[in-house]
């Protein structure tokens, strides 16, 4: 029964966060290389055309996964990738997922992913808020890596 309760809570949480632009996983290890997925829904009646991810200062993006149906571009500051933009038409009630690879910060703590979602009609939604805001930034909790002997 306890398992049932845990699953119910997990489902409630999952269905709530599914409505936002989110980045997965939401927990990772300090200093680790990670495969991240940006999940983008179009919730309203206007098609999403592009999504821009601002790379947090202490995260190093090494690249993106290529795939059909979208294009991408990097914005760089010197050698460092500071933003990634994926362009794809995501119609209402559709979701898209974009994958990138990054090295986590060396210290534990939250990483907030600021994302800008742009629509066909020229409007945009900025997923840059904090928890409780209308459009919160997705957060990955960076935990200390286990010490090796």
């Amino acid at each position, binding site marked *: *029964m306890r*398992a*049932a*309760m845990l*699953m*119910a809570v997990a*489902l*409630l949480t999952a*269905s*709530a966060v*599914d*409505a*936002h632009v989110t980045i997965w996983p939401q927990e990772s290890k300090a200093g680790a290389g990670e495969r991240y997925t940006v999940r983008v*829904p179009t*919730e*309203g009646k206007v098609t999403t055309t592009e999504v821009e991810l601002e790379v947090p200062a202490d995260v190093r993006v090494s690249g993106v996964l290529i795939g059909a149906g979208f294009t991408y571009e990097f914005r760089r500051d010197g050698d460092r990738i500071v933003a990634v933009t994926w362009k794809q038409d995501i119609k209402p009630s559709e979701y898209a997922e974009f994958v990138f690879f990054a090295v986590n910060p060396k210290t534990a703590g939250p990483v907030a992913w600021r994302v800008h979602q742009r629509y066909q009609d020229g409007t945009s939604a900025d997923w840059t*808020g*904090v*928890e*409780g*805001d*209308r459009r*919160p930034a997705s957060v990955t909790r960076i935990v200390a890596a286990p010490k090796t002997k």
Partner: protein
Amino acid sequence: MAVAAGNWYTSFVISPAYPDEIEKMESLQPNHMQVRVIMNRRTAVVLGVALLVLTARAAWAHDGHIHTIMGTVMERDAQAVQVKTPGGETLSIAITDKTRVVRGKQKAAVADVQKGSRVVVDIGNGEDPLIANEIRLGPLPVAPKK
């Protein structure tokens, strides 16, 4: 096949659609014609609860999406409530006759939503215009003991 006590054991026979398929199936061993499903009772309970939760969630969410915001009530009249979120944004959220107001597990009234109240507001699919499906009020402040 041994079946542990407390498990459910169900056997389904695949129905053939055409006579030639019947012949083909008759030539098979009985085990090939049956799909056996062993479902642990606990797994069934978990799946049942999950199904109920998903169904209920979809019913509440209208479009299948739930957005909630939280913050402090800045103003409230009969038509709308202004909520300042943790990020400093002030949102105007319409109140309708379908808006539910609760405090803990108790039903409350729109009149209980007062300036300064801490609230969590279910704004449905989060699209404009924002409409409050439910306003959850924080606990009443406890008066300091004298």
